[in-house]
């Protein structure tokens, strides 16, 4: 739970500050802009306006208009030109205003961001980060609330990261920026200002590809990430009150998934609930099933339960609470696997 413990570069860390998740993002961006002149921020309204969620607040003023760039309204242009920037020595960090608006850039991501290294046998690489708020639950206008991680976990060549806490957000974002390969960094919009946490100052990394045990328990493994962490947590607490002890995992990285943390937990409990916000079909939840099938078949005591967004488009906000997993649905699932 203590991010400092996971830090690879410790020397600069002395103090902490209480930050929200979005402030932690800003902190990470500022840290890396200061650290490495090749880092550039590109996006719509990220300069003067500081981003529609204020994730880049103050950064243009501090680092200048050639480092923090207000771009035209053009996702394919932003990502496509960032490919050119990257192969020619820069480290572009792209903000997509809402992850559901990344689709116009999907072509650039699926055939270029992810394939330049392969096509050139590592002569050219794309150390790019695409960050974006994602998810429902804030009464945003329609089509602002998608959670399309599956489209990226499926396309080889990009890592997918999704923090749920301020300290993780900063450490994972720094790790993503330092990563030599492209990373999609999903920021749970709903948690931007929902929690505060002590976040170490200065430079530190949280390792990509490692999940985090939130609570320990022997009865049921509960796996989730991002905005669903607090939702599942409520259910885990309720279950505890009823005597069911959950091993509760925040995945943090969606590709590559942390197979070891899953297998270790599942082999202990034999009962699993996976919770995610995106649609069930071809969701990342099924990748977790696949890992369990491979690693822990003989340990399973009950069919795995999934609590996910339904196989319907994310609805208008009047129905979004019905679309989203709720603590109640998670709790029911925990009981179901427990009593199987």
């Amino acid at each position, binding site marked *: 739970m203590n991010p400092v413990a996971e830090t690879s570069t410790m020397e600069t860390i002395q103090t902490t500050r209480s930050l929200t998740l979005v402030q932690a993002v800003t902190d990470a961006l500022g840290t890396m802009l200061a650290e490495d002149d090749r880092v550039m921020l590109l996006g719509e309204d990220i300069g003067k306006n500081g981003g529609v969620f204020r994730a880049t607040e103050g950064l243009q003023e501090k680092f200048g208009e050639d480092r923090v760039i207000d771009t*035209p309204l053009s996702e394919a242009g932003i990502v496509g030109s960032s490919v050119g920037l990257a192969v020619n020595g820069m480290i572009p960090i792209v903000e997509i205003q809402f992850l559901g608006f990344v689709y116009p850039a999907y072509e650039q991501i699926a055939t270029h961001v992810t394939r330049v290294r392969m096509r050139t046998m590592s002569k050219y690489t794309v150390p790019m980060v695409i960050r974006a708020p994602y998810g429902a639950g804030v009464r945003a206008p329609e089509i602002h609330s998608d959670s399309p991680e599956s489209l990226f976990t499926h396309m080889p060549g990009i890592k997918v990261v999704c923090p749920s806490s301020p300290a993780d957000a900063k450490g994972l974002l720094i790790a993503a920026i330092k990563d030599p390969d492209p990373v999609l960094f999903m920021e749970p919009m709903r948690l931007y200002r929902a929690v505060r946490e002590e976040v170490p100052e200065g430079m530190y990394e949280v390792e990509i590809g490692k999940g985090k045990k939130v609570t320990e328990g022997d009865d049921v493994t509960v796996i989730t990430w991002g905005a669903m962490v607090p939702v599942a947590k409520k259910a885990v607490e309720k279950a505890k009150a009823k005597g069911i002890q959950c091993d509760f995992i925040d995945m943090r990285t969606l590709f590559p998934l942390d197979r070891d943390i899953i297998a270790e937990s599942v082999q202990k409990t034999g009962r699993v609930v996976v919770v995610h916000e995106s649609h069930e079909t071809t969701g990342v939840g099924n990748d977790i099933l696949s890992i369990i099938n491979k690693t822990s078949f003989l340990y399973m005591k009950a069919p795995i339960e999934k609590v996910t967004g339904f196989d319907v488009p994310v609805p208008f906000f*009047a*129905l979004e609470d019905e679309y989203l997993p709720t603590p109640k649905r998670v709790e029911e699932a925990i009981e179901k696997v427990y009593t199987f």
Partner: protein
Amino acid sequence: MEELYPITQYVNEEGKFTDDSIKEEITAELVHSFYYNMLRIRTFDRKAKSLQRQGRLGTYALFEGQEAAQVGSALSLKKDDWVFPTYRDHGAILTFGANMPKVLLYWNGRAEGNLHPDRNIFPPAVPIATQLPHAAGAAWADKRKGNKNVSIAYFGDGATSEGDFHEGMNFASVFKLPVVFFNQNNGYAISMPIEKQMNSKTIAQKSVAYGMPGIRIDGNDIFAVYFETKKAFDRARNGDGPTLIEAVTQRFGAHTTADDPTKYRDQYEVDSTRDQLDPLLRLERFMKEQKYWDGKWEQEISTQINKEIEEAIVEMENFPKANVEDLFDHVFAEMPWPLREQKEQYLQSVRRDQ
């Protein structure tokens, strides 16, 4: 290029003719209809803003300042035409005949907000510029059917940077489709001033890329908007293909109720020039100048408009709650099993509590 695309204006800020070639076509009825519709949507817009403040409406996109552009372009549409608005064009669709309570429902996160009876109004484009190809396609269908309907796509200055703008324009020009691309250049895409959005001095000149007529008009002069849009519709109905219209206007307020424009522009400047720019005031000045003004009439319509809006709010607020089943029922004509099962399971879980 600015010289190639001068701004067409008939009535200036003081309400005086700068070009009175259209004088013959102006009737009292037309002028009153301009004023009535602009006052109506402005009143609506202000009311919606205040509802949002009170927590009775979700995030709302304001259009104050753009009334001449929206009303002038929508007024010469015919009932069976197709309208492809953005999130900021409910002034236009209300003028075209959208149902007001439905518009309010839309801003309250309800899909029912897209169900305007007897009108072909596509749901507002939320992903920017995606509606341009749609409008081209709908116009194409009408062309194939051999009727005289047109389509209009509304879009902003920022939308011109998206690939879909380009692809929609190209399709319309290649297939000579009966569609009007109506751009409201309000100077900003959220915080981004147009000078940083594009290197071209005008939006109208982008028509050159498609061999399409491009028109640049004073979007605060409802006469310019109305007559130039009408001409473009006429060309389209006559089989002469698409037109790009750039209506130069401004957004007086924030991008949406979630936006704070003081972060990126001098709101004082906006406020100090607004008296001069305001399209409704300009029309009022014109009406006074040309003796169309009637204070009593203005009072009457104002009362009537307020009543209409209050009733619409009541209707919106009394509208039945969103139905959970709708979450599943409108994805496919017939629900595939994953949805059917999810629906059943969810309804069971919900009902367990009741």
